């Protein structure tokens, strides 16, 4: 496969066809913040934190680096006035739900995001979809999914599956950037499959 050379933050970076800008940057040791990205999972593009500025033909636009395929001669800026401004706003929007998430705390400092800019509505889940996708794509169990749409969207364990699978797995738990997943599991267990807690793993 032919090498593609592109420019990220003024540095020439070599990448392979089919790579994303994020992968190319990571390989070159250039850091781009991500929340919903995971190397084992299909790209998702939901948090939009990984956005970068592209310049082509004198025009600039924002794209998300975890999805954008590398192209020869691409000029990418991982930080710019606009990227920083939009990223800060996205952080502030997320912080109203999960004000204490560690990953968000550090980024908030970096980008000067005010965690109290929007009214606190601690639902904790930031909808990164890591748990849902991990369970579906890696474990192929689909014990957890999203229900509803828009602002009512939330994660939900499917009791029939979760009661059988989750107890011995819990591999998605460490992926969650907030405490939402643990809490949802405890709640689902209490409500939907309380007895299985004591059941030995057959």
């Amino acid at each position, binding site marked *: 496969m032919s090498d593609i050379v592109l420019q990220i933050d003024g540095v020439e970076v070599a990448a392979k066809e089919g790579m994303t800008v994020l992968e190319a940057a990571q390989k070159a040791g250039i850091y781009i913040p991500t929340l919903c990205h995971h190397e084992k999972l299909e790209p998702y593009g939901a*948090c*939009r934190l990984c956005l970068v500025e592209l310049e082509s033909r004198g025009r600039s636009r924002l794209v998300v680096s975890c999805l954008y395929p590398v192209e020869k001669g691409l000029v990418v800026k991982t930080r710019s006035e606009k990227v920083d401004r939009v990223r800060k706003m996205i952080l502030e929007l997320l912080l109203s739900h999960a004000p204490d998430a560690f990953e968000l705390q550090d980024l908030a400092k970096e980008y000067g995001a005010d965690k109290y800019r929007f009214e606190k509505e601690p639902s904790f889940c930031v*909808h990164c979809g890591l748990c849902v996708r991990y369970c579906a794509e890696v474990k192929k169990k689909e014990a957890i999914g999203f229900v*509803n749409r828009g602002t009512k*969207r939330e994660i939900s364990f499917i009791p029939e599956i979760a009661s059988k699978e989750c107890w011995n797995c819990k591999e998605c738990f460490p992926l969650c950037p907030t405490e939402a997943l643990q809490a949802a599991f405890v709640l689902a267990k209490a409500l939907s499959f309380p007895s299985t807690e004591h059941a030995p793993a057959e």
Partner: protein
Amino acid sequence: MERINSANELEALRKSILSSRDTNKPCITICSGSACHASGSKEVASRIEEEIANQGLSGTVDVRKTGCHGFCEKGPIIVIHPEKICYFQIKPEDVSEIVTETIIGKKIIERLLYTDPATNEKIVYESEIPFYKNQERLVFGSNGSIDPKNLDDYLAIGGYSALAKALFQMTPGQVVEEVKKSNLRGRGGGGFPAGSKWEGSRNAPGDIKYVIVNADEGDPGAYMDRSLLEGNPHSVLEGLTIGAYAVGSHEGYIYVRQEYPLAVENVTTAIKQAQEYGLLGKNILGSGFDFTVKVHMGAGAFVCGESTALMTALEGRAGEPRPKYIRSNVKGLWNRPSVLNNVETWSNVPLIINNGADWFTKLGTESSKGTKIFSVVGKINNTGLVEVPMGMTLRDIIYKIGGGIPGGKKFKAVQTGGPSGGCLPEELLDLQVGFDELTKAGSMMGSGGMIVLDEDTCMVDVARYFLEFLTDESCGKCVPCREGIRQMLQTLTKITQGKGKEGDIELLEELAETAREAALCALGKSAPNPFLSTLKYFRNEYEAHIKEKRCPALSCKELIAFYIDPKKCQACTTCARKCPSNAIIGGKNLIHMVDQEKCTKCGTCFEVCPPRFSAVKKISGEPVPDPIPEEARIIVRGGKKNE
């Protein structure tokens, strides 16, 4: 029915259909579109059939149930051919008179005619009614004359001749070239040139390709796609088949929402008939070209109209937008090249192939060619579907065709482009409608929704309303849309409640930038438009709400009060009797007063106070005057002085 096996056989069949039809034979067409169904056209139609039979006219008078005529406001609509006499708002009771008087007696029934509100004159013929006269109904016009369930009707008006022409006289490449040359742009959203989209698919690698009709139509108040699919399904199928031939596709899908049962029914029937005739399926018209079409019913979420969400739903998964930097025409449905176009876009194709790109480009503006169907609703006299050449001004659409604003109210703005479109003010009434013209003005064409707003509309509240719709309809996947639009809605809601504060406009602008720049799909990217366009043209209203706690349109409940002017109140007691919350203190010969504590601001008193008194006032941004003292409230009549 026997299969048609060549272009010649198609023409022969067309001739035999036409010769079996006597153009002088009376024919009553009745609109059977969804809107007219709702206002009783079904009963009218069966009464007509009964009456024809009862009066011994079976066989001498035809009855044809057609699709929507566009003027739904005045439905059910009857047109009597060959004279083309138009009757409106027909009730079953009118039927026997119509048959006796007009069909047999050749007399016109005055009271069923259209009355021009401008001149108060009665108008007999469709072509003379201002609503129709100023339109250019290329795509939509046949809706009123054919029975959508009868393929022969479509053949009679030249149907499928464009398909025959494409298959036998043109190469696929030439078809793409012709569509490119016509500069046909997508009628469903962004106005992307259809020809380039087709070309991309045609050139994309892969043997399996798809063509798809987007009949999701989620914009509130818009129903042109439904009407076309209901009223003229074969024109959509013909366009789709030509497109399939052009890009090399053998499988097509019609994605139509489940809430459109008549459209589903009619298009399903049309597909079956076309297959029987050999106009769909294997070896179409003996050309060797194979193409099949399936109807897919969508669950009817607004976001499913978005192209990647629609394709995901077609694949049988949850209809959520997919992040993509490779276009669907190269990698779409099941990752194969897929051309997705809107219903109206496909319907334009047979016209272009038959008449040529040069004919098509004669109509329109520099960059927008042909016609566009608009769904004109809101504060306008003639609501309905209108088809006009691109480049007609908003003023002509609203006043000449739409008949202006009811109730002597002043025009305030027109909202175009659906929920994520924008509002254009009076100064822009002379703007020509076209994709780029509307976008440049801060609105958009979208799928052709047009909502007329009058002086009583608060523009901040309009923005709030559309953002509320969009927050509900957002799929909730990406942060800028799910969270950003929600915050915009909260801020706008506070402003309309008089709780706005300095800095809110700037915050809204920042949120708008985030959604526009960073959202995953076009729903989120365009969601700030209602706010941005109202801010651009009506900034003063935002400022009045925030700084003076005043709603200039006297519409936001939290910011208005009802007050009875003591000098004008004649103690007629009407308002006191009608107030649903007993908030009016009054009595015989007593000047009335509104108890502000009890008042729910329903506005009833304002509406019922007799115009000759006009004592009730709506006020905003100013304190309600103190009640006048008890003794001064007594009204003394008849000149008798109580000194």
